[in-house]
């Protein structure tokens, strides 16, 4: 039998598949389609210090092989999430990863320590790359020293392993990855969305009310693979890969590039069963290409030198 398990700091996954943050809410809706315990883990929707109402609508637009979104971190705030959402997810036999966001370092700190006090969350995903909020967010994601600083603060505020989610909207992804690794990150999560825009011809305005939005879906997969491949050669912490995964073949491509586990975002919208279907298809794909386990494939797209 194919060994699908993946071991990463804080995460003992029965398989390497998890829904990506923001594309799966807190699991309630998709729990009506299948038993969430089938998943390796869940990356929860971003939590901020207080409730956020997010951006004006329209918040999404379709693009060739992808989509734009500018939700704007709408969420009920970290306390409410811990009170009502975490207990629901704790019913399932899966690892829970809390995605934390903020406008200030203080806010990140607050959210991180709040999750630290529950014993139901297994890791934090530090979202320094959300392109859809006015303050904070993206600055942390494009400046290595700011990224390092917020990583340090969050590491201090919490005992949970911290996966820093990197933005692809940078000149030098390796510098970003190294900066947060040195600052104590236990892992990386990449990539977040590429900033994009679509203009609606009849109204002559950007379709997304926020004007710009984050590009996700198959269109960005080559950028994700490139960045993971490059970063893998320069850091020693594991990578959770994401960006355009739609098939088990795609998952293997991410593993070969250097991801130890993967997240699936946009593809859930077209097919609510995508995560479970990929989990089912993965053993055959791995064995077709000569692998005995998920672990076996990680990083194998690199020259052995």
């Amino acid at each position, binding site marked *: 039998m194919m060994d699908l398990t993946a071991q990463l700091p804080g995460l003992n996954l029965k398989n390497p598949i998890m829904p990506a943050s*923001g*594309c*799966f*809410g807190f699991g*309630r*809706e*998709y729990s*009506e*389609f299948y038993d969430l315990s089938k998943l390796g883990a869940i990356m929860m*929707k971003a939590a901020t210090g207080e409730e956020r*109402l*997010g951006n004006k*609508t*329209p*918040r*999404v*637009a*379709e*693009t060739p*092989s*992808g*989509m734009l*979104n500018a*939700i704007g971190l*709408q969420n009920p705030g970290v306390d409410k999430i811990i009170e009502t959402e975490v207990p629901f997810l704790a019913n399932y036999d899966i690892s829970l990863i809390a995605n934390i966001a903020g406008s200030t370092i203080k806010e990140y700190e607050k959210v991180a320590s709040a999750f630290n006090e529950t014993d139901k969350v297994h890791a934090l995903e530090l979202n320094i790359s959300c392109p859809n909020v006015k303050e904070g967010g993206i600055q942390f994601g494009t400046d290595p020293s700011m990224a390092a600083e917020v990583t340090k603060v969050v590491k201090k505020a919490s005992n949970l392993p911290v996966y820093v989610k990197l933005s692809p909207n940078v000149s030098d992804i390796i510098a970003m990855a190294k900066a947060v690794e040195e600052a104590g990150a236990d892992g990386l999560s990449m990539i977040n969305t590429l900033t994009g825009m679509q203009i609606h011809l009849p109204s002559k305005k950007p*379709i997304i009310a926020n004007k710009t939005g984050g590009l996700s*879906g*198959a269109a960005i997969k080559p950028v994700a693979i490139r960045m993971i491949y490059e970063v893998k050669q320069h850091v020693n912490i594991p990578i959770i890969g994401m960006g355009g995964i739609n098939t088990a073949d795609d998952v293997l491509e991410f593993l070969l590039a250097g991801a130890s586990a993967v997240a699936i975002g*946009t593809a*859930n*919208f*077209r*097919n*609510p*069963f995508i995560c479970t279907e990929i989990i089912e298809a993965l053993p055959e794909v791995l064995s077709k290409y000569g692998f005995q386990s998920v672990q076996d494939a990680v990083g194998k797209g690199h020259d052995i030198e």
Partner: protein
Amino acid sequence: MLKKVDMQIRKTNVIALDTVEMVLKSTYISQTAVPGQFLHVNVPGHTLRRPISIADVNRETETITILFKTIGSGTKKLASYLPGMKVNALGPCGKGFPIDNEVPSNVLLIGGGIGVPPLYYLGKTLAKKNINMISVLGFQTAINVFYENAFSQFSDTHIVTNDGTYGEAGFVTAVLDKIGDYDRYYACGPLPMLQAITKELDHKSGYISLEERMGCGVGACFACVIPTDDHGGYKKICRDGPVFKAQEVCL
């Protein structure tokens, strides 16, 4: 409960300019859908599904009818599909119009353009409860008009066209004071129409069905929110709607 279903196309028909009527076979949807709910329709080659209202349900033949306007690449592709081919959808999505015992005995249906379809299934359902209905259906121009006869089966039907090429001229609001009395209205159509109606009829009980660009269609992505009146909250059109009390949301 929301399911992912494959439905075979039984019939397609162009019933007005760029407007397609499609009959689909689905035991599950035909048995569970209520008026006002929608299907989140997969269009191969597209990242996002397309939300389309359920316009009619036939429990005997286990079929449902949708009506859609060909706008962009998704609906154009859907329009090219032939009987026998399959369409995948999530459904029935959202919450429909409330059809409880408290429906007053005189109601008004107001539909604008491609907002007309969900009102048809609603009207047919209310007709079985012997509710008296008036329908006001607005279209841009004569060649866009559809379902006038269908609505006439159960309601006193008024057609309005923006350019006056058929029925009354103007917007649906133009005829609202010329029609009989009613105690509740149900409306679906473009946002400006709904804004005008909810303002003009703010003394009446009313339900409106809203549109918004959607991601998941199931309530998970927060794409399709609408502000509600109670302290800055939001509701999700795909899950809490698409039908809302007229006073519940801020248009």
